[in-house]
C-alpha cells in the first residue's frame, strides 16, 4: 500500500528515477574515488598521453579490457594527478565518425573508394616500385611524425631506408624541435635536454623564452605553481600571454630581437663579473671568443633592437646573477625562427657562463612539442641513424648493421634531405612518391598554398592516418587506416627524456591496423620481410633499440622492458646496462662533463640577422603565430573530434591586433577582417587587444587558413621553418 502511495506521489514529485540514475556515481575502487556508474571499471592501467611532450600518465578505466574513461595518474612524477583538457578527452576522439576504417584508393573519377587491404598494399608496392624503377630508389620519400611510438618510428625509418631503399625521410619534428636538436648537438655534443621537471619546482629564477607555458604545457605550469621558493618568473615574449600575466618580469620585446638581447645580457654579466669562471674553465670552450663577440651588444644597441628599456635589460641580468638556481626554458618562439639555433645557443650560453646547469633547478631547457618528439629525434632513422648515430660515420653504420644483422650496404652513407628539401625535391621532379605517416603537411607546412601545389605534383601520395578527413588524406592517392593512441602499444619519450608506455585499451575501428602492423604488412609485401623477422612486435623492437642505443648518451640498454618502465613510473634516459634506474628524477651534466670529445660544452654564436621578410607599406604588420588554447592540438585532426574540446576554443579564426592599430584602421571588435600576405589572403574576426603590440598581429596556428600566409624561410642549421614572423596587411572586410 505504501509502495502504491509512493508511486502515486512519485508521479507528482519524483525525486529519483531513471534520469537521476544516469548520472549516478559510485565508488570506483582502484583508488579512484567516486566514478560514474556506467563507466565504473573492473580494472585500470596507466599509460602516457599521446598529445604533447609533457608526457602525462593517464589512468585508464577498463571494463573487461576496454577503456571506458580515464583520470590522470596520481603518482606519476610528471603530472602528479593532473591532466590538461586534451588528456581528459583522449579517449573521446577515438570514437569519431571520421576515423579511417578501411584502406581508401582514389578511383578514376578522382574519388577515394574503400578497397581491401590486399589491394591497398599491392597498389602501394606496385606504384612505389614503379616510381623507384623509373626514377631511382631515392625518388620515393617519407614524412614521419613525433606522434607515434618510438618502435613504430624506428620500424618506419628502417623499413624505408634499409628495406625499400629510400634515402630521404624526415619527420614533422622538423617543424617543432629541429632547432633545439641542432643547438644541443652543437653545444653539448649530443641532442640532450638536461633537465627533469622537478627543476621547475626547485628554481628560484625561471626564465621562459617564447613559451606560453600556461596554454602550451599546462601541466608544466602546474609544476611552476608548485614551486615553493616564490621564484622570479621572467617571460620573454612579444605578446602579453597568460604566462606573461603571471610573470614577475615580462619582457615584451620586438619579435626576433631575443638573440641580440641575450648577447647583451651576456655582456652585462661579463662586465659585472657575474659569471662562474670556474665552471667556464672546467666545462666549456670558446668563452673568450664569445666574451669578445658580445662587447658589441651595448645597452643602446640592445634597447634599440628589442624595444626594451635599459632598466628592464639590466634588471633581467641582475635577476640571473642573484638567482641561485636559474633555469632557462624555451619553446617554439625560439625554435620556429630564421635564426633559432643561434638564439637557443644564446640561451645555453647564459646557462653555461653562470654555471646554471647540472644542478637542481637549473639548465638550458628546451620544452619539446609532441608526445614523442624525443623518440623521433633519437630513433626515427631520419635525421640521424637509429639511436642518435650518424649516417655518414662508417663505424656507426657498421655498429647498426651488426645490431640489426643486416648488410651494412643497406644503410645509406649520406644524410636524408630535411623536410623542406624533400618538398623542394618534389617541386624539382626528383621525388615522385611520398609516404606521409601520422602528420598533416597540407595544413601544417609553411606557405600552405605552395605546399599543396607541391603535393599535387606527386605521382603517388600515400597517407597513413587515423582519420580520413585530414587535409593531407583528402589529397592522397591511397589512404591507409591506422589505429591510434590507445589502440596500440609502444613507448614515448617525453621532454625530460622520460620513457613511458602506451597500451592497447581500445579496439581500432573497422580494418584499421596499428602503424606497426602496417609496416609489417609493407615489409612483407615489399619482399623484405626477412630483414625484419625480429621486428615482430613493439616489445621486440624495443629490445632492438636498446642494442642500438648501447654506448650512446641516450643509452637505454639497462631497461628490461615495458613492465619495468610501467612499474617505475617512466624511466629517463640514460640507463646503462647494470644501472639501477629507480631514481625518478634525474638531470644530465651533474659532473660538468659534456658529450663532445673534450668533455666540454661549446659557446656558439653568430651575428644576429634581420627578419627575412620585413614589413612594408603594403604589409605593415608582423604576423605572430602560436598555440590558441590548451584544448587544441596542432592541425586539430584529433582535438576537433571532441565536442567538449570544440566548445573550449573559438568557433572562428580570431585575429588579435593592437587596439590602437584597430582604431586607426577603423576595425571594430568582432568585425570580419582580411589578412593578406604575399602568399595569400584569409578572413578572420578581429579581437582588438592591448596584449599584442602595435604593428603586430597574432593568429592561432590550429586553423587551416593561417599557413596560407606564412613565409617559407628556414633556420640555416636546423632547417626548421620560421612560422613566427611574416609581413601581412590587415583591412576591413568589404
Amino acid at each position, binding site marked *: 500500500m505504501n509502495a502504491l502511495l509512493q508511486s502515486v506521489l512519485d508521479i507528482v514529485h519524483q525525486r529519483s528515477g531513471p534520469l*537521476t540514475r544516469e548520472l549516478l556515481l559510485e565508488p570506483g575502487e582502484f583508488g579512484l574515488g567516486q566514478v560514474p556508474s556506467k563507466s565504473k571499471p573492473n580494472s585500470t592501467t596507466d599509460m602516457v598521453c599521446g598529445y604533447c611532450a609533457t608526457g602525462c600518465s593517464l589512468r585508464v578505466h577498463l571494463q573487461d*579490457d576496454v577503456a571506458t574513461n580515464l583520470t590522470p595518474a596520481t603518482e606519476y612524477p610528471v603530472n602528479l594527478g593532473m591532466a590538461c583538457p586534451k588528456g581528459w578527452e583522449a579517449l573521446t576522439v577515438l570514437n569519431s565518425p571520421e576515423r579511417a576504417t578501411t584502406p581508401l584508393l582514389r578511383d578514376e573519377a578522382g574519388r577515394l573508394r574503400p578497397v581491401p587491404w*590486399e589491394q591497398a598494399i599491392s597498389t602501394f608496392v*606496385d606504384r612505389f616500385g614503379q616510381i623507384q624503377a623509373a626514377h631511382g*630508389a631515392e625518388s620515393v620519400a617519407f614524412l614521419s611524425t613525433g606522434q607515434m611510438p618510438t618502435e613504430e618510428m624506428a620500424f618506419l625509418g628502417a623499413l624505408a631506408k634499409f628495406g625499400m631503399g629510400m634515402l630521404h625521410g624526415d619527420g614533422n619534428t622538423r617543424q617543432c624541435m629541429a632547432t633545439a636538436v641542432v643547438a644541443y648537438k652543437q653545444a653539448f655534443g649530443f641532442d640532450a635536454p638536461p633537465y627533469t621537471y622537478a627543476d621547475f619546482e626547485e628554481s628560484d629564477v625561471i626564465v621562459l623564452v617564447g613559451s606560453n607555458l600556461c596554454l602550451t604545457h599546462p601541466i608544466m605550469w602546474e609544476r611552476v605553481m608548485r614551486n615553493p621558493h616564490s621564484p622570479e618568473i621572467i617571460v620573454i615574449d612579444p605578446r602579453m600571454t597568460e604566462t606573461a600575466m603571471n610573470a614577475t618580469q615580462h619582457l615584451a620585446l620586438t619579435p626576433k630581437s631575443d638573440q641580440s638581447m641575450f648577447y647583451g645580457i651576456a655582456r652585462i654579466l661579463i662586465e659585472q663579473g657575474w659569471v662562474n669562471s670556474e665552471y667556464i674553465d672546467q666545462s666549456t670552450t670558446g668563452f673568450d671568443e664569445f666574451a669578445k663577440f658580445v662587447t658589441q651588444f651595448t645597452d643602446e644597441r640592445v634597447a634599440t633592437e628589442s624595444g626594451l628599456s635599459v632598466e628592464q635589460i639590466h634588471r633581467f641580468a641582475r635577476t640571473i646573477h642573484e638567482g641561485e638556481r636559474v633555469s632557462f626554458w624555451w619553446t617554439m618562439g625560439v625554435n620556429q625562427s630564421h635564426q633559432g639555433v643561434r638564439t637557443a645557443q644564446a640561451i645555453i650560453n647564459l646557462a653555461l657562463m653562470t654555471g646554471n646547469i647540472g644542478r637542481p633547478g637549473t639548465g638550458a631547457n628546451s620544452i619539446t612539442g609532441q608526445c614523442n618528439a624525443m623518440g623521433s629525434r633519437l630513433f626515427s632513422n631520419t635525421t640521424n641513424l637509429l639511436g642518435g648515430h650518424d649516417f655518414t660515420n662508417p663505424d656507426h653504420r657498421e655498429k647498426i648493421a651488426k645490431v640489426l644483422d643486416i648488410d651494412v*650496404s643497406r644503410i645509406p652513407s649520406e644524410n636524408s634531405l630535411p623536410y623542406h628539401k624533400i618538398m623542394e625535391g618534389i617541386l624539382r621532379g626528383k621525388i615522385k612518391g611520398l609516404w606521409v605517416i601520422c602528420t598533416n603537411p597540407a595544413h601544417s607546412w609553411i606557405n600552405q598554398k605552395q605546399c599543396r601545389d607541391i603535393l599535387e605534383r606527386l605521382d603517388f601520395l600515400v597517407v597513413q592516418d587515423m582519420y580520413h578527413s585530414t587535409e593531407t588524406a583528402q589529397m592522397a592517392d591511397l589512404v591507409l587506416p591506422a589505429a591510434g593512441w590507445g589502440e596500440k602499444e609502444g613507448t614515448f619519450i617525453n621532454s625530460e627524456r622520460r620513457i613511458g608506455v602506451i*597500451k592497447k585499451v581500445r579496439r581500432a575501428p573497422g580494418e584499421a591496423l596499428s602503424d606497426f602492423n602496417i609496416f609489417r604488412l609493407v615489409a612483407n609485401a615489399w619482399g623484405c620481410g626477412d630483414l625484419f623477422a625480429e621486428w615482430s612486435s613493439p616489445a621486440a623492437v624495443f629490445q632492438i633499440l636498446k642494442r642500438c642505443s648501447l654506448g650512446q648518451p641516450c643509452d637505454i640498454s639497462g631497461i628490461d622492458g615495458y613492465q619495468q618502465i610501467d612499474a617505475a613510473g617512466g624511466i629517463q634516459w640514460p640507463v646503462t646496462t647494470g644501472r639501477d634506474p629507480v631514481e625518478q628524477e634525474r638531470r644530465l651534466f651533474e659532473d660538468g662533463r659534456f658529450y663532445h670529445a673534450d668533455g666540454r660544452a661549446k659557446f656558439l654564436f653568430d651575428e644576429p640577422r634581420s627578419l627575412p621578410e620585413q614589413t612594408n607599406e603594403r604589409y605593415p604588420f608582423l604576423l605572430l603565430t602560436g598555440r590558441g*588554447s590548451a584544448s587544441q592540438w596542432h592541425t586539430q585532426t584529433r582535438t576537433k573530434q571532441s565536442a567538449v574540446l570544440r566548445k573550449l576554443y573559438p568557433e572562428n579564426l580570431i585575429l588579435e591586433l593592437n587596439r590602437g592599430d584597430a582604431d586607426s584602421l577603423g576595425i*571594430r571588435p568582432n568585425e570580419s577582417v582580411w589578412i593578406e600576405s604575399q602568399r595569400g589572403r584569409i578572413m578572420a574576426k578581429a579581437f582588438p587587444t592591448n596584449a599584442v603590440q602595435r604593428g603586430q598581429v597574432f593568429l592561432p596556428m590550429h586553423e587551416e587558413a593561417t599557413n596560407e600566409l606564412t613565409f617559407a624561410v628556414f633556420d640555416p642549421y636546423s632547417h626548421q621553418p620560421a612560422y613566427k614572423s611574416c609581413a601581412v596587411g590587415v583591412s576591413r572586410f568589404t
Partner: protein
Amino acid sequence: METASTNRPDVSHSPHREETLLPIVDLSSSIGPDFISQLLREQRQLTAVEQFSQVHGNGVPSQAKYYSKLLPATPPGDGQQYAFEVDLDRCSGCKACVTACHSLNGLDDHETWRDVGLLVGGTATKPIMQHVTTACHHCLEPGCMSACPVNAYEKDPVTGIVKHLDDQCFGCQYCTLACPYDVPKYHAGKGIVRKCDMCSDRLAVGEAPACVQACPHEAISIKVVDRQQVIDDAEADHFLPAAPDPQITLPTTRFKTSRVFPRNTLPADYHSVNPQHPHWPLIVMLVLTQLSVGAFIVGLLLESLLDGSSVESFRRLHATSALGFGLLALAASTMHLGRPQYAFRAVLGLGHSWLSREIVAFGIFAGTACLYAAFCWLSPTSSFQPSLGWSVAGTGLLGVFCSIMIYVFTGREFWSFGQTTTKFMLTGAVLGVAATWLSILLFETVADQPTHGLFTSHITFRLAQALIIAMAAKLIFEFSLFRHLFTRRMSPLKRSAQLEIGPLFGATTARFACGVLGGIVMPLFLLNEVTSDRSTAIPRMITVAMLFTACLVGELLERYQFFAACASPRMPGRLNA
C-alpha cells in the same frame, strides 16, 4: 598478384649495388588474406590488463592527498553553506576543470557544467588577461528554483547546494532563462535540464568535486561561507567584474585575487553579438494566446455595434474561432516541453513560479472559453452569456499578465515590464482586431442577411481605425529600440538593437514589412474602399485574410526577435564564444 620485386630497382645504398639484391619473396604467400586477417585479429586483442596488472588500495582515493586541503575541515553550521572559491591568481585558463567535470560526472558528448571565461582590459603598457572558471553559484535565492514550475530544484538546508531533480523536470527550460549565469543546461535528447550539484555525492563522502580534484593549479576549492556575508557582499557588488548583478540571486561563489582589475575590465566576448535560442513553440504560444484573448475582448466590444439578430450568430462564429486559436496556442506550448506527459506537474509551483501561474491561468481561460463557446451554440440567448464572455476575457488577461511576468522575472532589460507589457498587449490588440475582422467577413459570407453589407462597412471603418492605431503604436515602439544604437555604452538594449540590425536583419526587415503591410497599408486600402463604396465581398474577404496573415506573421516575427535579440546576462565568456 604481381611479384613486387620484378620492376623494383636495386635499393642497396652500397656503391657496389649488384652485390646486394633484395631477396625475392613470394608476395601472394606473405601478404595473403591469412597474414592480413592475422594482423586484424591481433589488432582486436586487448592485453593491457594481463601485461600490466596494477595494485591499488581500495581505501581513501589516491587523489585525496592533493585535494584534501581544498575542502573545508568542518561541514557548514547554522547560517552557513558550502560555496566554490576560485583563486583567480591561480586560474591559468587551461580548462581542465571543464573536461574533468564532464568525464567524472559521466555527462553526454556535448554537455558541460563548468565553463572558463576570459576578462581583458588594462592599458597599452599594462594589459591584463584573466581567465575565470565558473559553474553553478549555488545561490541563496536561486533564480532557477523560484522559476521552476514543477519544484525540480531543491536547496539543501545544510549544504546549501542547489540540486536539480532530473526525474521531476518536465523540460520547460524556464530555469535556463531565469538563471542570470546561464548555469542550467537543457539536454534536448533527454528533454530535461541538468546542472552542477557541486558533486554533492562526492562531498557527502569527503571527496572533492571533480573540478576541485582536477585543477592542476589548485584554483578551485570548497569553502564554508556565512549566508549573511554573501548578502553583505552582494550589497557592495563584490562579485566579479562584468558579471551579472549579484543582487538578483545572491550567488555564493567567491572569486578572490590579489590583483587589482583595471576599471576597463570586460569579458572577451563582450562585443560578440549572438542571437539567442528563439524557442519557436513559445513564440507560437505567446502570439496565439494573445490573439485569442484579444479576439474575445474585441468581439465583446464589437457586440454593442451589432443588432440583436446578428449578435448571436456572430458571437457563435467568433467565439469558436477565438477559442480555436487559444487551443492551438496551448497545444503549441506543450511542444515546448521536453517531457509534455508531465505537464500536470506545473501546478506544483503556483506559489512561486510565474510559469505555473501562466499555465493555470490559461488552463482556466481555456476552460471558460470552451464553456462560453459551447453556450454560444447550445444556449445562445441565455442571459449570463455576456458575463461569461467577460470572465473569459478576464482570465485571458490574467494569463497574458502571467506571461508578461515570466519574462519580467528574468531581470533582462529587453524583457522589462514596460517592453514586455507593451508588446504583449499590443499584439493582443492588433491580432484581436485582425481576427475579429476576419470573423466578421466570414460571418458576412456565411450568413445570408441583406443588411450585412451596410453594417460591416460601418464596422470595417472602426476596425481599420483601431488596427492602424494599434499597429502604428506597436511599430513605433519597436522601432524606438534603435535609439539605443546611438548610446555610447554597450548596454543590453544596444546589444538587442545590434542583433536586430546585424545577424537578425532579415527577420527585422520582414517584421516591419509585414507590420506595415498588414496593419497600415491594407487597412488604409480597405478604408478607402469602404468610403468609396465600390467593393465586392469576395475580394474584401481575400484582402482581409491577407491582412490577417500579414499581421500574424509580423507578430510571430516580432516575438522571434523578442527571444533571439534578447541580450542574456551571463558570466564572462570566452573569446568569440
